[in-house]
């Protein structure tokens, strides 16, 4: 029996004007709790302005290899009621999936077809789409209670606070002086 909670994909925005990027996933009984879990797992350090969590089952994911193996039959007439979809591309080999914008579509497959048809879509290593309404997004009101506390903690969890190289050089130099 599958007793584990649903999986939510986590997208994180590090700073203003930077796109949200895919960082991982958490399990939670609902979207609100998923957002709290995402905060605990991915925002132990302060570089976060906004988090989105989306049920993994709502995300249509295709790699370039899969898209090359499949044909997308695009039929406008069969399309359902239009709604906004978020589009994510992986454009760099070593990068992750980055939010690139929205398309209006009546189904995930149509949204995918539209995302694939763009210049970025043609060169992307992977494309993800999901309906905007499936995402639970943190708001500007969440920044203070959710992400600000990490800011006050950098002085003991930042590697730059420990001057090991300088200290070791001083110790070694002191020994040279003794000799």
């Amino acid at each position, binding site marked *: 029996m599958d007793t584990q909670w649903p999986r939510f994909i986590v997208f994180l925005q590090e700073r203003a004007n930077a796109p949200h990027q895919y960082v991982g996933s958490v399990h939670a009984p609902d979207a609100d709790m998923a957002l709290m879990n995402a905060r605990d797992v991915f925002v132990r350090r302060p570089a976060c302005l906004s988090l989105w969590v989306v049920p993994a089952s709502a995300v249509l994911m295709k790699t370039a290899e899969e898209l090359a193996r499949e044909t997308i039959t695009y039929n406008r007439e069969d399309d359902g009621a239009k709604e906004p979809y978020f589009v994510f591309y992986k454009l760099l080999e070593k990068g992750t999936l980055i939010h690139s914008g929205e398309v209006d579509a009546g189904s995930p497959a149509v949204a995918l077809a539209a995302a694939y048809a763009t210049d970025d879509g043609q060169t992307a*290593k992977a494309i993800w789409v999901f309906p905007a309404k499936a995402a639970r997004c943190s708001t500007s009101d969440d920044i203070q209670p959710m992400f600000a506390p990490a800011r006050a903690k950098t002085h003991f969890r930042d590697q730059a606070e420990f001057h090991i190289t300088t200290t070791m050089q001083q110790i070694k130099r002191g020994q040279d002086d003794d000799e």
Partner: protein
Amino acid sequence: MYGATVEPIEDAQTDDNRLREFEARIARGEKIEPGDWMPDEYRRQLIRMISQHAHSEIVGMLPEGTFITRAPTLRRKLILLAKVQDEGGHGQYLYHAAETLGATREDMLDALLSGRAKYSSIFNYPALSWADMGAIGWLVDGAAILNQTMLAKCSYGPYARAMKRICAEENFHKRQGQDIVITLATGTPEQKVMMQDAINRWWWPTLMMFGPHDTDSPNSAVLIRWGIKTKTNDELRQMFINQTVPELLALGLTIPDPDLRYDEESGNWRIGPINWDEFWQVVKGNGPCNQERMDARRRAHEDGRWVREALAAYAEKQSGT
């Protein structure tokens, strides 16, 4: 039916052709993403490695966790709390990476709690004094960083990305450990003795962390061939020895190895024989703390049951209204 359908093109490709293309992609430095074709053995090896790695992060919280209440200053306590919390987070990143290959979180958790799963042998050794927090940070995390820096270049995208995040945070772990070692090694005579004792106990188990010699490591060849690893166990171990020995000696500490010598010709520090009997005993469950670690994990899981039940009940109530 929806407004568009996605259907597979008639696929006459054989697995041989697919394997050739897969290996060509790896040779070109491309990253494999979930959904891409991959050999079953690639998937199996990755799930094995990533889940073991995740379990190691989770069990790795235990030796240091016991010292949170015994840290010598508030600052040291906050640092240690942050570090142990990081390890928990790293476990979560890694469980996620394994899930992208089809493993389930529930299954992996069950494997850990039932004792089916393996985790790094190093965490079956006890942390006996505050100096052990320094030794673990410098030696154990230092060794882990070498392995993880290599894995950040791994051919599987989600594992490589998780490793990149983890390495950035692990550097803080190593440095806080070095900070403790330097403080104690340059401190009072009692502190120096305490630090030397910790180095004496952690040195050999740390060298064993890199795994068996290349000649006894059956998975190595395929892992390197498919770009999961780019360096062998012995190569990584030698890197660690070369970078660590001179630093510890500079601090007036000694290495518990009578055979240790510097080889001018190769520029390598050469160590004496590793006690592999001890390593295999610990891997098989007979280390000093195997039972204690498993008991602690199971207790934590059971003690957290009411929280999981409360969350599930709340979610159900919310969705009903």
